[in-house]
């Protein structure tokens, strides 16, 4: 413990080649990839932003990951979903599937839009990004279950969930549903687009799974006081 504190206090020296690793020294700060932040002139910065900028002049910054860009097309939710879909480090394939999914969703919606009469055109949502965000939002559980051991028995106790955990569960359910419960010969992007479109309208197996979790939590209300945090 003394050694780790001493490590923090030793002077930082730059490496020969920068490397992006998850185990950075906590001294390092996260990079700012949004271009608009750098366009704000010094006079309009709020006091916290000024402080942050001061700090960045003295502290080292982590290297930016290769999967993020400074373009407004970059979406952190989509990047997280791609990382969760990735198998054996094949990011190229995972990204390809994601872009094909977005394209399929857009094609289906735009086709519906062009064939619909003028009155219904306003109601059809064609943006695949809003559909994806809304579908994941609809799949997020509000409350979760934890297994707590009391008196030799294990009880499923309803607990509040952190936002990151909720998003993780929604994405995980979506991916496992598409991998396991659909017909073997359909492509992943086809399965994903169908499931996302039904989740957008609050139908489908993933929404059902979320509701089942809520019902279980409701049924185990009595054990809620077993939670001590």
């Amino acid at each position, binding site marked *: 413990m003394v050694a780790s504190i001493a490590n923090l206090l030793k002077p930082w020296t730059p490496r020969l080649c920068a490397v992006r690793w998850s185990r950075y020294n906590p001294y390092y700060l996260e990079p700012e990839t949004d271009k608009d932040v750098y366009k704000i002139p010094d006079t309009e910065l709020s006091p916290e932003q000024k402080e942050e900028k001061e700090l960045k002049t003295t502290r080292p910054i982590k290297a930016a990951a290769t999967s993020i860009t400074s*373009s*407004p*097309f970059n979406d952190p939710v989509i990047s997280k979903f791609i990382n969760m879909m990735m198998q054996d480090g094949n990011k190229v394939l995972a990204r390809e599937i994601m*872009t*094909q999914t*977005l*394209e399929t969703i*857009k*094609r289906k919606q*735009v*086709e519906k*839009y*062009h*064939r619909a009469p003028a009155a219904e055109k306003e109601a059809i949502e*064609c*943006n*695949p*990004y809003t559909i994806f965000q809304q579908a994941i939002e609809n799949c997020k559980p509000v409350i979760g279950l934890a297994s707590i051991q009391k008196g030799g028995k294990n009880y499923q106790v309803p607990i509040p969930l952190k936002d990151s955990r909720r998003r993780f569960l929604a994405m995980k359910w979506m991916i496992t549903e598409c991998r396991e419960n659909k017909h073997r010969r359909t492509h992943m992007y086809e399965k994903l687009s169908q499931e996302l479109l039904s989740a957008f309208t609050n139908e489908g197996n993933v929404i059902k799974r979320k509701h089942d979790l809520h019902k279980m939590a409701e049924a185990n209300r009595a054990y809620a006081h077993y939670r001590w945090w």
Partner: protein
Amino acid sequence: MNLPRLYHRLRLTARSLHSSANGQQVEKVAVAVDPDVPSQVSVFRTSENDPTCHTELHAGQYYTLPPAHMRTLFPHGLPPRFQMQMKTFNEACVMVRQPALELITCLRKADYSEPALRYVLYGEKGCGKTLSLCHVLHFCSTQGWLVLHIPDAHLWVKNCRELLPSSSRPGRFDQPIQALNWLKNFKTTNEHFLSKIKTTQRYVWTKRESTEEGRPLGELVDQGVSRVKSSSDVVGALLRELRLQAGGAAEGAFRLAVAVDGVNALWGKTTLKKEDKSEVLPEELTLIHNLRKMLRNDWCGGAILTTLSQTGSLFKPRSAYLPMELLGEEGFDNMDPFVPIPVSNYSDKEFESCYLYYLDRNWLQHPHSRTEDGKKELIFLSSRNPSILERLCAFL
């Protein structure tokens, strides 16, 4: 007295008197001229749907292919991504571009009593060669030509499940399925010609089947469609008949447009193997052999429109796009002399037109892609290549 100035002022007053008298007429003429001349504001669509009337004025604008004739015009000619786009947008819009206009002008001015001219559309991958060819074929069919369209010659030299030894010649191989599909599509495109053209020779298929001289071409095609084993030979006979009868002086004369997409397949390598695992050369395939005879410029009364394609080609690097690289020595010698027509990436005006078309069809959904910065980013990412732009905009 300053005579020149006085003279000048006299002329000015005379002109103003003249113009005020004709004021009414001038306005009318201005109104009449405006719809024909495209305004400075970018216009991406044109209402001129007849390729016969397309001129430089329409360059960079989209025209709609008539949905009623789509099935007969292009049963098999359009690229798959374009077909998906047609289904999504509920319409088929093609951009009028410089290479296609040039080819149409050449076809209009050509002398059809001379041997057929060969045109080769070449360019980098994804810059619009196949769609330019489809535009020109639309023009040919509106002019009443007989269109012989081979959508992709590469499909005939690879992935063939059934390779039968030829029934008529000992060293050749037949491809029944490919020949059958092509004959069916040919029948759909050229229905009205099938009853008018007659055969000039007796063809014997088997001991019991033959097509007599003077029978309509439709019978020949039906023979190929019903008897799959002899379909490749039927294709050869069909090509021979059309070659002999195109551009005759008779009243039933027609002009023949031979369109081959991916012509470099005819002189490249194949991936097909014989039973003893040795490679099949392209000239040992009946379909390829007969098509090569068609591409020789020893017949009159038509034109040969071809496209080079690296996309389906075998054993050629992705960066190859010039005729010499893709056709090889043998192909170039066979195709020489030809009229090369380069197809390039979108110009500024064409890119603008494409962008506006996608906006109009509600295809660009991401809010950033609709801004100026987003447009610049799209130009940078696609470097104005039509197919890369289409794939980018698909998921944005």
